[in-house]
């Protein structure tokens, strides 16, 4: 197992290298010029050229890629073209809100969706099942920003129950922190709840047909024990896989959610950087997201062994 983990961690290095090359090349050929954005609306070509030179944007592709790669290997993600702040500092400033949003969303989604899916499978064909499936369809169909605006309108503007926007660091207290995350987490989590609930239901339906479930029932195992200990554990592998895949959904959704609720997270940082062509920041954030995604996949692979002892690495 340990050797497997080490092998998988080492395998991230070529993956990250390919991502780095891909991202750098893509940005190089993408239209746009950060020097022109910095110079502003009334700048002359000479102003833009002067800024381009001072930023080193006039250097050849290979020289720029080499310099960037060298910096990365030395643990330096570079400096933002616009803010002059180190990319690592900007990411550090933004990582807490995004991480908080994702964690709260994950907890909310799993704690709501898994029981929903289990109950829907148990009550297959009943009103409960149909209600869960209807929710799942709606959850899939309504975009994150629509859910976000509706929540903000009712819970923040009309009823004044929760803040409409912003983020409060955890260091200022759990409730102030959570207060800012409830609405965004519901908005972001809706599609995720729908996805997990559907997969849980489908997998549970399959498992509930198995002989050992019938045996458990015959032996007099209680309903809850049968559902959550016997059936759910055996249905867990596909559910965990979907949860892992959903992390990518969360990363994408966080960009929209952070905009709707004005949360200063990595999603907004990425969008701002793309709009301005702040290359070092885009590269740094994409590398980070790729790394996180690779690690999440590794964690899921390892989690399989907990639920299915037959799986060995």
């Amino acid at each position, binding site marked *: 197992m340990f050797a497997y983990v080490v092998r998988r961690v080492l395998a991230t290095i070529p993956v990250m290298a390919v991502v780095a090359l891909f991202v750098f090349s893509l940005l190089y050929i993408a239209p746009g010029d950060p020097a022109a954005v910095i110079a502003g609306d009334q700048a002359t070509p000479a102003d833009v050229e*002067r800024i381009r030179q001072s930023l080193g944007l006039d250097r050849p592709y290979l020289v720029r890629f080499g310099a960037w790669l060298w910096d990365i290997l030395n643990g330096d993600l570079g400096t933002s073209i616009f803010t002059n702040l180190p990319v690592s500092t900007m990411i550090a400033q933004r990582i807490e809100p995004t991480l908080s949003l994702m964690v709260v969303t994950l907890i909310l989604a799993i704690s709501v969706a898994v029981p929903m899916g289990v109950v829907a499978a148990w009550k297959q064909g009943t009103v409960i099942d149909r209600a869960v499936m209807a929710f799942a369809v709606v959850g899939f169909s309504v975009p994150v920003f629509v859910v976000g605006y509706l929540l903000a309108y009712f819970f*923040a503007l*009309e009823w004044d129950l929760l803040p409409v926007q912003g983020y409060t660091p955890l260091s200022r207290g759990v409730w102030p922190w959570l207060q800012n995350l409830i609405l965004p987490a519901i908005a972001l989590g809706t599609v995720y709840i729908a996805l997990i609930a559907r997969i849980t239901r489908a997998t549970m339906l399959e498992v509930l047909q198995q002989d050992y479930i019938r045996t458990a029932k015959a032996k007099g195992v209680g309903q809850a024990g049968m559902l959550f200990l016997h059936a759910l554990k055996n249905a867990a592998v596909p559910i965990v896989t979907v949860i892992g895949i959903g992390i990518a959904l969360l990363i994408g959704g966080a960009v929209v959610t952070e905009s709707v609720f004005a949360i200063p997270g990595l999603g907004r940082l990425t969008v701002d950087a793309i*709009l301005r062509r702040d290359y070092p920041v885009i590269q740094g954030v994409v590398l980070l997201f790729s790394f996180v995604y690779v690690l999440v996949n590794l964690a899921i692979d390892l989690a399989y062994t907990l639920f299915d002892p037959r799986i060995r690495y």
Partner: protein
Amino acid sequence: MTPTHTPKAAARPTRRALLAAPLLAALARPALGQGTAGAARVLRFIPRSDVAVLDPIATTAHVTRNHAFLVWDTLYGLDADAAPQPQMAEGHVAEEEGRRILIRLRQGLLFHDGEPVRARDAVASIRRWARRASLGQALMAATEELSAADDRTIVFRLKRPFPRLFEALASPSPPACFVMPERLARTDPGTPIRGELVGSGPFRFVAGERAAGSRLVYARFEGYQPRAEGEASWTAGPKRAHLDRVEWLVTPEPAAAAAALRAGEADWWEEPTAEALAALRRDRNIVQESLDPTGVLALARFNALHPPFDKAPVRRALLAAIRQGEFMEAVIGADRSLWRDEVGVFPPGSPMASDEGLDVMEGRRDFDRIRRGVTEAGYAGEKVVVLGIADVPPLAALSRVGAETLRRAGLEVEALSLPWAEVVARRTRREPPADGGWSISFATLAGLDAFHPGVHPGLRGNGADGWFGWPTLPRLEAMREAWLEAAELPAQQRIARDIQRAALEEAPFLPLGQYFQGTAYRRGLTGMPKGLPAFWNVQRVNG
């Protein structure tokens, strides 16, 4: 990070709130319990965009200029009559028939690091600014020597009298001439200042609380000395900081900004969209007004390097196709109080504005005649690449109407709709339109940036050294020179009329009208500025 949350439901109970309250009381109570102690002297402001570049000389972005007016002060300010008034300067003396100007700094001026403001700081600041500002370049061209005679005296030795000297130093058009410590002002103007932002203005930039792309914080600088006399007017007069802190909350999403303003989580939203303004109009806690009487001028800019717009007659022929009202309605709606048509090259109501030559855009519009006129002027069916902007609503509206107008005028149009970041890059390209260049694009200028020929970038005719479009128009350049040297207002106005007529003949751009951008703030703020979003003299009457 905007932790504060101002409750308001208690003051405005609704049936829905009453129904929801019992169900959600437990959830609500902690939120309602979080107060805003001390908020009376904190102002939360939503700027038009993020202040990506903090250095006001390295960029001409207005949001950076507005940020800079908090942090730095200027030697001269511009009042509502567009007259320069001493600001950091105590006053000046003109000697040798106006060829030697001595500007005396006020006593006791301090930078935010506690160091006194010295004349050599001002000299270095003027030099850096002048390399980027067109009016500054004209000033330096007329200057033989600029020096500091002592700690408080700046000396201009001029080759010839330069009547626009104080106007240049006072112009708030970006880049404005902010006074920085000499060590910062020695930075190349093309390189944004790195590290510390040591200011000279009424508020201190709190670098430690900056979250790039999200929040900027300014604290009152206790060492700032406002002018003792005069009346606050635009960027002139006493700048009294009544607020302890000004927090800029960068909120790119208009719906989030509107919600924050309505919920009291923000106090002032600089530039609401037209849709948001319409929605906010129903909220009695929110005041809407246009702070800038000079408005915003819209224009279509030609690329004068390539056919068909390398020919002035073709450009001029298109003036007859322009109905400014169509553009303005697309930008800001049908409410006539928000826009003006029959607008020339200067903001209506400003000293240089006139109706000279505007008859070309009046009368019945006959597109058959316009098409014939365009052909006779030399249009040979070349493809016209319209560099449209997709993601800035006013510019997107101008682009749409502009492309359609050109089509109706008989031009073969390829209409692009690109993100702003791509447009600003592409419009610096001087290649022919077919090789990745462009033919016509759209821009807006704040009224102050088009206030007179000295600052209006669209009226330059200096070719490759000028604004995008690069027309070479010696006649306009000569007129500008004459305007810069004209000392008296009637002479300036006469030249400005000539410039407008020449500009409509040469047509380096098409004037598309003037609109007034509304701002929205919560009731209870007083001392709101005019001209630009400034924070001195602003205070709350109820916390």
